[in-house]
Structure formats: structure tokens, C-alpha cells
């Protein structure tokens, strides 16, 4: 039995708590949140103990195997480093950190203590994205040439609007496009050059939206164009890979495995459509199941903390390009998990 302590009872914390609750061989021992009500509510729903500080939780709980950090991005480093002093396994939600420097510090800190550090790049566990990767690797579309991705929806609502504070969240490029940076790097190799544009901070803050378009040039020559949006309504994600001998296309907005539309009983009242793409196990659950199995077996995860750092490197380059108006070169020779 792997005993987990979860830090953060926000949106991602709730998703992780439900996943742990449903996974065999895992015990969600405690949930920590400074918002006492949120911690209590999620703890009650998942049968865990509720705490309002990491210290109290560690004082009261024994034999915790892993601490899962589902806190706002700017708190990742502080709490992952603290966690690494208390347990042998640290799971950290993406982005691994607010900057590459912070990520490097966390990785080194964990390595020195022999602590395993996992990063929650959940797109690696999305079946549609894995299927695309398999089809590319099988050579069904020849050599990939131009890739286009899109991701986003409405501006995320969260505690103290921390997403709206660039210093805390890194904005849309670090928070949202990071998913695609990591997936594209895992599928198509290292990035050589980055060029990016995003809407002005003033407009973004005033309108509570954000929007960025990024062009990546890979070492292989491949071109990629990424759209990140918090200016639309309703989440969707999509990817198209055009190769020398074919095209693969996926757009979550265009698939309808299930859509429930309640009958409108009063004239003039609109029924709210609830679309779903149900699976036996969702990608977040698959991700945590994989991490738990790595903890049990001592094996390496399919996505490493180094991968988490390299994704931040691309995001940082994109952000820098937005600021300078110039392309930014990347110099990395790391292996990709």
C-alpha cells in the first residue's frame, strides 16, 4: 500500500484525490489546504484526513510514501523541496516550477537525497495523443513536416486568481502551452528555435483573457504552430500532423462520444448541454497509477523531471520571444524520456 499526502484541494487537487481514492494499492492518507473548508470537504469525500498545514500533517501521519504537490505554480518549488525532506517520493503537478532555475534546484535537491521526483505532464497519458504518437512512429504519414496544435478555453478560475498573476503562474504560455511543448518534444524530438506572440498584458488583465501563438522549429526541421487560448469558451484541444505521406487530425471539439441535453421544461429557458468523453480510466488516473507503480517497483516514469524542466525551457524561450520580438535559440542535448 502506497500512502499519499496530497497538498492542495483546488481543481487539480480534487482530480488527483478522486484518482487516488479509486486506485487499488493506494491510500490517500491526508489532504492539506490552508483553506480549511476546501480541505475538509475533499477529505470527507475521499475518506482522507484533513489538515491545514504540511507540518501538522507530517506530525500526525506516519509512513507517508509520497507527497503530491497540487499547489499554484509559484509554490511548487518551496513545497516540493520541503516534501523531499520528509518522504522518498514527490509528485509535482506541471509546470514543475515557475522557472528552469527553480526546476533545476528541485531536481538537484531530490537527486541528492535519493528522492524520486515525478511531474504531472498528463497529456502523455491522453489516449488520443498516444494514438497519434504511435501512428507517427509507425510511419503511416511518412516523415512529419508541419504540426499544428490548439489548446484552451475560458480563463481559469482559481484561488486568489493566481492564474491572472503572471509572476505566480507564468501565464498561458507556461501553464497551458507547456502541455504541447512537452508532448511535441516527446513525439518529435528537440526544439531548435522558438518564435512567439501573445496579446498585450494590459489587454489580457483588463479583459481577463489571454492568447498566444507560437512557432517552433525542431532540430529535425519539423515546423510546429501552437495556439494557446484563454479567450474562448468551453475547453477544447486539437492537433494535426501533416507528413510527406499523410495527415492525422484530432479536434476534441468535433467529437461527440456523449452529449446530454436535458429537456427544456419552461419556454425560453435554454438547456445546458453537457458533453462527455467517458473512459473507464481518465488520463489523470492513468498518470497517477503509473507513478504509483513506479514507486512500488522502483522503475522510471515515462515522463521525467528533466522532461518537465525542458518543457519549461521552451516556455521560457517563447516568453522571451514575445518580449523581444525575436526568435530564441534553444541549446539542449538532453535525452527525451
Amino acid at each position: 500500500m502506497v500512502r499519499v499526502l496530497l497538498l492542495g484541494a483546488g481543481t487539480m487537487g480534487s482530480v488527483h484525490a478522486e484518482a487516488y481514492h479509486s486506485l487499488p494499492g493506494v491510500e490517500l492518507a491526508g489532504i492539506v489546504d490552508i483553506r480549511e473548508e476546501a480541505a475538509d470537504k475533499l477529505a470527507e469525500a475521499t475518506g482522507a484526513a484533513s489538515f491545514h498545514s504540511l507540518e501538522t500533517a507530517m506530525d500526525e501521519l506516519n509512513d507517508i510514501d509520497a507527497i503530491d504537490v497540487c499547489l499554484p505554480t509559484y509554490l511548487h518549488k518551496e513545497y516540493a523541496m520541503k516534501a523531499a525532506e520528509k518522504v522518498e517520493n514527490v509528485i509535482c503537478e506541471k509546470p514543475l516550477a515557475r522557472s528552469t532555475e527553480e526546476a533545476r534546484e528541485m531536481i538537484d535537491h531530490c537527486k541528492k537525497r535519493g528522492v524520486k521526483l515525478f511531474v504531472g505532464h498528463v497529456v502523455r497519458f491522453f489516449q488520443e495523443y498516444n494514438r497519434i504518437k504511435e501512428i507517427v512512429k509507425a510511419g503511416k504519414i511518412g516523415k512529419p513536416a508541419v504540426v499544428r496544435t490548439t489548446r484552451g478555453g475560458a480563463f481559469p478560475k482559481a484561488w486568489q486568481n493566481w492564474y491572472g498573476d503572471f509572476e505566480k503562474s507564468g501565464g498561458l504560455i507556461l501553464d497551458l502551452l507547456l502541455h504541447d511543448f512537452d508532448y511535441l518534444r516527446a513525439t518529435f524530438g528537440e526544439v531548435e528555435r522558438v518564435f512567439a506572440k501573445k496579446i498585450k498584458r494590459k489587454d489580457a488583465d483588463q479583459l481577463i483573457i489571454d492568447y498566444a501563438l507560437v512557432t517552433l522549429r525542431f532540430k529535425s526541421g519539423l515546423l510546429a504552430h501552437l495556439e494557446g487560448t484563454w479567450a474562448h469558451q468551453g475547453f477544447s484541444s486539437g492537433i494535426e500532423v501533416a507528413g510527406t505521406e499523410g495527415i492525422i487530425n484530432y479536434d476534441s471539439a468535433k467529437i461527440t462520444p456523449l452529449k446530454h441535453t436535458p429537456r427544456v421544461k419552461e419556454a425560453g429557458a435554454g438547456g445546458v448541454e453537457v458533453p462527455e468523453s467517458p473512459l473507464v480510466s481518465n488520463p489523470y488516473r492513468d498518470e497517477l497509477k503509473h507513478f504509483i507503480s513506479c514507486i512500488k517497483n522502483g522503475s522510471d516514469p515515462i515522463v521525467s523531471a528533466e522532461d518537465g524542466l525542458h518543457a519549461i525551457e521552451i516556455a521560457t524561450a517563447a516568453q522571451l520571444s514575445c518580449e523581444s520580438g525575436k526568435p530564441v535559440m534553444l541549446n539542449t542535448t538532453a535525452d527525451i524520456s
Partner: protein
Amino acid sequence: MKIGIISFAHGHAYSYANAIQNQEGLELAGVFDEDVTRGKAAAEKYQTTFFDNYQDLLGTAIEAVIITSENVKHREHVTAAAEAKKSILCEKPIATTIEDAEKIISSCRDNDVFLQIAFPVRYSTPVKRAKELIDNEELGRILAVKGTNRGTNPGGWFIDKDLSGGGAVMDHTVHVVDLLRWFMDAEVTDVYAEYDNLISEQTIDDCGILTMNFENDVFATLDCSWSRNDAYPTWGDVTLEIIGTEGTLTVNAFDQKVDVYSDKDGVSWEFWGDDMDEGLIVDFTEAVKSGRQPAITGEDGLRALEVALSAYRSGEKKQSVTNR
């Protein structure tokens, strides 16, 4: 109105010829083509006269001429038509160099003849509706645009730089640039481009992503790649995702389609929307008849070409370049 066509090198010549035939009061009075076989076949198809010399065609009583020759030949054909005092519809891109484009514009001005550049997408009904929504300020202030104008590698002279002036970037930059200039009444200030020869075996740029800044602070990207393969259900697309302060607008000029699954022909998307090429021909001929100014001027053609050429400069320097 009697109309001539100079060259069937560009495939649009056929849809313009069809549009002429579909309109009452328009007559395709003669065609010229350097490729005699192609020209004679077209003359037969449209029941008109073939000329083996464009000066002979320009010497007839035609009022207007459509120039659909290879890009590098536009200058020669337009200047000859201008000197013959014909009203001119010139296929995009206007030319392959700024110098040629300026010569085209000045020769039409000096001869006081009507010159319109063929940007048919302005006549797509969904695109026209988008322009209307933008003009009515339904989007508020525009912040950013994501555009695509992808297609199938056209082959032939399109992939011979000496005749086309360039590949996908030259072929597919100008349409979307023209739409954005039209929508926003703003010029492109900076261009960054990543393009390459990644898809076809012939040495020509066949894929590219442009990023443009406009003088109204809007940024836009454009995928101009010839990335649609044989098995894809259609030839290509024109799409725009427009982000405004008051909302977003998604435009897909060719999305009015039915899906066909044929044992004989495979999967295809059959378009049923309004014919934009016909819209272009109707507007061109009506403008000539009524003596009104062209909806799309030589200057519009020049501005769009300028951006394509800036994209090539950016690619060579691997830097963002100043467009104007």
C-alpha cells in the same frame, strides 16, 4: 462585354472562363496561351477563338482581359494590355518582384486603364459576412488572428522558382494578407517566417508559418503550407480565427460541404457554398461597366506581395524583418 483570357497556366483561368459563360452579357471572345495545345483545348472547350499571339488578341474588340499567366509573366502581359487600353483583371500574386508590381501599376495608371487584382477569397460569402461583423464592431477591437491557407502542391510551373517567384510562401501568403488588410485597414509592419522544403521531393519551399505584426498592434500567424496530401478529402482551405476584445470569430471559407464516401473516388468533401470566383468576375465586370474604382487595386496586390517577399527575407536572415 467581350473578354479575353491571356494564358491558362493558372488553373483559376478555367473557373473564370466558366463564370464568364454563366453570366448573361459576358462573352469569352478569345484566348491566348503560349502553350498552344493547352490554349487550343481551352478555346475549344469554351467555344471561342484561339490566338497564338497575345498582341493579336489585344488588337480585337475585347473590352477587358484576364491575365492568368505564370507569375513572372504578369508584367509583360499587363503592360501590353494596358497599352492596348484594355481593362485588366490580373491573377495573384500581382508579380514576383516589387519592381515588376510597380511597373504593372504605373503602366495601368499611365494608360488610364482599370486594373484589379484577383483575390477571390474576398468574394467568399462567409468571408464577406465576417467583414460585415468586424465593420459592425461585433468583435470590438481585434487583438490577434490565426490564419491558414493550406493546399495541395500544385506542381508544374508553380514549383519552378524562375516562373513562380517562389513556392508555398509566394502562392499562399497573399490571400490571407489581403483579407487581413481589408478587414483591418492596416498594413503589416514586421514579418517572421519559418519555411522549408519538407514535403515534396522538388526543391521549393512547400511549407511555412508566418508571423506578422500590423500597424494597429494586431499580430497574426499564417500557415501557407502545401501540406494537403492526395488522400485528404479536399484541396486545401482558408481559415481565420479572430480574437477580439468583445469575442472571437471563426471563419472557414470552404466549410460549406458534404462528405462523400465513394468506392470509386475515396473520401471527398464536396463544396456547395457560393462560388467566389464567379463573385469576383461579376464584380470586376460590373466595375468596368459602371466606371467605378476596382474593389481590389494594384496597390493591394503590391502590399500583399511585399509581405511574401519579406517572409523570404526573414527566412534567409532567420530574424524578424521590417516589412515597411
